[in-house]
């Protein structure tokens, strides 16, 4: 058995990496990947707890998260492609139009 705190530690680390990536990177696609990373970190935490307490609620929730993540990526990539078509760039600094 893998001790719970190992799983949680890994999940926290992954979540942190994902957050910092989403906040810091300039490439839109990398930001999307970071968000995916955050979601998967959460999945890991849920599975870990589910295994530890023997409760399948966590499993079910993970399945839901995976579905939502997939849909969200589809939409997000659609937006990125549309942005690229209009601005010829995937740099997030080039799309800051709603400003003073």
């Amino acid at each position, binding site marked *: 058995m893998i001790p719970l705190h190992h799983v949680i530690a890994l999940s926290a680390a992954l979540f942190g990496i994902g957050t910092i990536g989403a*906040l810091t990177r300039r490439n839109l696609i990398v*930001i999307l990947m970071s968000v995916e990373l955050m979601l998967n970190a959460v999945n890991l935490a849920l599975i870990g707890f589910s295994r530890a307490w023997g409760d399948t609620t966590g499993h079910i929730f993970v399945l839901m998260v995976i579905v939502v993540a997939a849909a969200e990526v589809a939409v997000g990539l659609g937006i990125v492609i549309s942005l690229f078509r209009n601005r010829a760039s995937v740099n*997030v*600094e080039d799309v*800051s139009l*709603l*400003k*003073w």
Partner: protein
Amino acid sequence: MATDSGLLRWIPLLPLLAATIHGVMLGLVRRTLPRGGVIALSCGAVGLAFVVSLLAVFQLIALPPGERVLVDNLYTWIGAGKFSAEASFLLDPISAVMILVVTGVGFLIHVYSIGYMDDDHREDKGFQRFFCYLNLFTFSMLVLVLGDNLLMLFLGWEGVGLCSYLLIGFWYADRWNAYCGSKAFIVNRIGDFGFLVGIFLLFAAMASVGKPTVAYRDLAASFHLIADMTVTLPDWLGWLPGAPVWKLPTLIGLCFFVGAMGKSAQIPLYVWLPDAMAGPTPVSALIHAATMVTAGVYMVCRMSFLYEAAPGAAALVAWTGGITALFAATIGIAQTDIKKVLAYSTVSQLGYMFLAAGSGGYAPAMFHLMTHAFFKALLFLGSGAVILAMHHEQDTDKMGGLRHAIPRTWLVFLVGVLAIAGVPGLSGFFSKDEILLSAYTAEKIPGHRVLWMMGVVTAAITSFYMFRLYFRTFHGDFRGHGRLDKVHEPPSTVLTPLYVLAGLSIFGGLAGLPQIYGDWLGVKDSNSLANFLSPALAGHHGHAVDHATELQLAALAVLAAAVGFALAWILYVQSPELPRRIRESLGIVFRAVRDKYWVDEIYDALLVRPLVWISDRVLFRAVDQGLVDGALVNGSARTVQAFAARGLKYAQSGFAQSYLVLMVVGTIAIVGWLVR
């Protein structure tokens, strides 16, 4: 004790209906009625109102003398706790006289206006609008006199003020007319302020003894509860007579009289009436001779129970009336515009009415109100006929010798002059004598004999300036431009009301024939008017002098009138070059009289200009533009703008990742706080 009558509401409602129809047609539908339609609607409404008034008065007379009160309650206008003001009408002897005068003389003037305002019809300059305003005025005046409480009185009071403004400035394209209309309204408003203060004081006092009401019958019945209350004047008013403790009724009576000063053109608020002559002549006749200006007299008579308990206020009323009568008469002797003479004459005759009312002679005041309505309307309408005949010339310097050119107008005008001068037998003689008698016997008024003498002198001056006007217009040589044969009689719609009014001016005095003359004719209780009015008026009735004295007083008044006539004859018929020599020798005195003692100029310098300056410089530029617009409105906007533009806007960077940083930081903070 009061009887219900469903008739009363129709008296004011008929003119209101006509005015509303005119208003809707002109304002909403924007189509004018044909001339016949306007005439039928307006004259019909007022004529019908007169018929209903007659029926209502017959209904009233059918009741026994002590119970002559008819009531018609429409609905509760204001209901607030224990206080309620009804929209209801009251017909008692005082208002009976008023409604007959208002609707009767009003109807005659409506008919007269058909011919007089003909120009406005042909050139489509507001014929219908004129009749709309006239009807609205009639409605307001009827509400004023028929209302059964002080609030209805005030409603009508303001309504007639408004209509006066609308009608004086009827030909508003000329700015002077609009200015005169505004002047009338503003000066009236000053009086209204005093009136309102009086109403509030009265109501507060009545409420403090547990009877919160403003209805006349309840006030009269419960007035004894507050009749002895006193007020203590503040130190800075200690110089007033009778200070520092005044009877409350005196204060209330004074405040009410301020309202009457404004509405009925007494000193010091009379200045609007001469300038009100800028309006069409029927307006001058109706509003400024027969009806609106008499509202103050009506109000004092209606509140007779108050003035009987407030001798100080009554004395002030009488003295103000007497001084105004004399003062205005002196101005009248030097005016050349035909309507200005009549305007000052009206101010003077109103002074007579207040002289009587203040002396406790409320019935003589009402009597003179009635006869004055007849002969003053006659004189104004007659002058209008002259003006029409002279193609809108009003200056008597350009008239003269008109009696052959317009004989019918001449005759009716002469009747009016004889009536106002107090020639024995005509209506003015009887009513003026009653007034002088009440002044002579008013023991409660300090200096009442002096007041009486002033009345007699005024009678002489009245006779003088009226005959002066008459001679300058109708006798002598024609001094105008153009030819005398171009001057012709006005149409019959103009002349017929004049005939009726002439008849009333001659025979109207019989309604209040004093008993001594009644005894000569073998008529018992000949003074029908005084007997009719006396149950509704407070105070003593009947004369306190014997017949011999009364006849002597009457003879003195006739002598005064004769002196005035003789003087006018000498100056304007016999030796026409004398007036010019007198004018020159009197110099500044003459100019003072002719220029109305410069009262308007003094008011302008002392009151109007400073007020306008304060309104413009201080209130408009400093407060409204500077403070409210500049500092408060624009200033607060600029502050917010500075704050936002200099600092706050940079938060909107459009950079999604900086928003994300804030989100993460916030989430950590919240979770951290929850977990703690």
